[in-house]
């Protein structure tokens, strides 16, 4: 694949050499590189150049943190932790308040709903009682009558009318 592309071939060789220098090759590839190094002076020279460039990085100094760095970092984190704690407290208080309001609203709603349902039921029962009052008042008399058609016949003859009018 790399035979027709000199740049790709060089890149591939460089990758191989660098991986060798970094100890990242498997033993089989490493053995092949070692053989190539002993056979090919140009390959050896390339490795030497890359190794030398790498060795020059030893000139880069490491950075030493000053005495204040750790202390100021920890202080900064402490401030952050305090803010975090405060905002958590605010969140908890707000959550509690919201929960309280929600519970109160639920209780109020339940009471209102209960009252409404009860009220509706009582009203309906009362309405029924009022409607049935004339029957209730004469329930003993009605018990003596077995036949409903007889009552309807009486009604047609308007026999009950004066009595009802008297009452009203």
């Amino acid at each position, binding site marked *: 694949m790399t035979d027709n592309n000199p740049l790709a071939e060089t*890149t591939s060789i460089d990758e191989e050499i660098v991986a060798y220098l970094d100890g*990242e090759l498997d033993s089989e590839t490493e053995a092949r590189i070692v053989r190539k190094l002993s056979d090919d002076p140009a390959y050896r020279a390339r490795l030497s150049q*890359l190794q030398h460039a790498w060795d020059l990085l030893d000139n880069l100094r490491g950075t030493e*943190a000053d005495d204040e760095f*750790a202390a100021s970092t920890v202080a*900064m984190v402490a401030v952050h932790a305090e803010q975090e704690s405060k905002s958590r407290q605010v969140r908890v208080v707000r959550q509690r308040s919201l929960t309280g309001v929600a519970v109160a609203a639920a209780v109020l709603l339940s009471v209102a709903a209960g009252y409404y349902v009860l009220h509706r039921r009582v009203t309906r029962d009362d309405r029924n009682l009022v409607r049935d009052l004339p029957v209730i008042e004469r329930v003993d008399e009605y018990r003596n009558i077995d036949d409903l058609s007889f009552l309807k016949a009486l009604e047609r003859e308007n026999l009950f009318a004066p009595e009802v009018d008297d009452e009203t």
Partner: protein
Amino acid sequence: MALTQPQPLQYELHDPDVRLMLQVRDGDAAAFTELVLRYQNRLLTVLEHLVGNREQAEDLAQEVFVRVFKARLRYEPEAKFSTWLFTIANNIASNALRSRSRRREVGVPEGNGADSTPLSLDQLAKAASGAMPTRALDKAEQAEMVRSAVAALSERQRMALLLAKFEGMSYQDIAQTMDLSVQAVKSLLSRARVNLKEILTPYIERGIRPEDAEVSTRTDD
């Protein structure tokens, strides 16, 4: 090369810093201080060479530690602690470098990083021009030359190089830190070394300041 993926418990068993971080997660402030003390120099070293500015490196390092603290409650040991820490550092530094380059695009002058502002490639070439008297470089100049060469690399090449050099990270760890494939890291490090070699060739060959700094860095990452 068959790699077995270590389990969280293994990280906890084998990495003392993972154990410290778990203590931080459980609310141990002293463990956090210990982590800062253990990693401050390592982090500052990588960040300073990455951004080329001591003051900014300190700000970024502190930001990394604050981020570590913020993430403590969600922390699960899924990698070595150093890998996790440098992943955060890489993200923070990348963002900082991106916004710095945006500032440069809109013409905001760059704050001078005291003693650690790297030379540009143009400056390097100028410094290496034939007009300068040929002489051996002293230790400080040599360090400056190398630092400038590193600064001339692309951001990703630089990060990979610094993690390999200063942290001694394996390709696998660098890949995890930079969210790349192992093959991508292999290419990145190879290009970084080749670019370094090309920049530093005059010095490598003669031990003197390069007279002809024809540098063509391959930044194809």
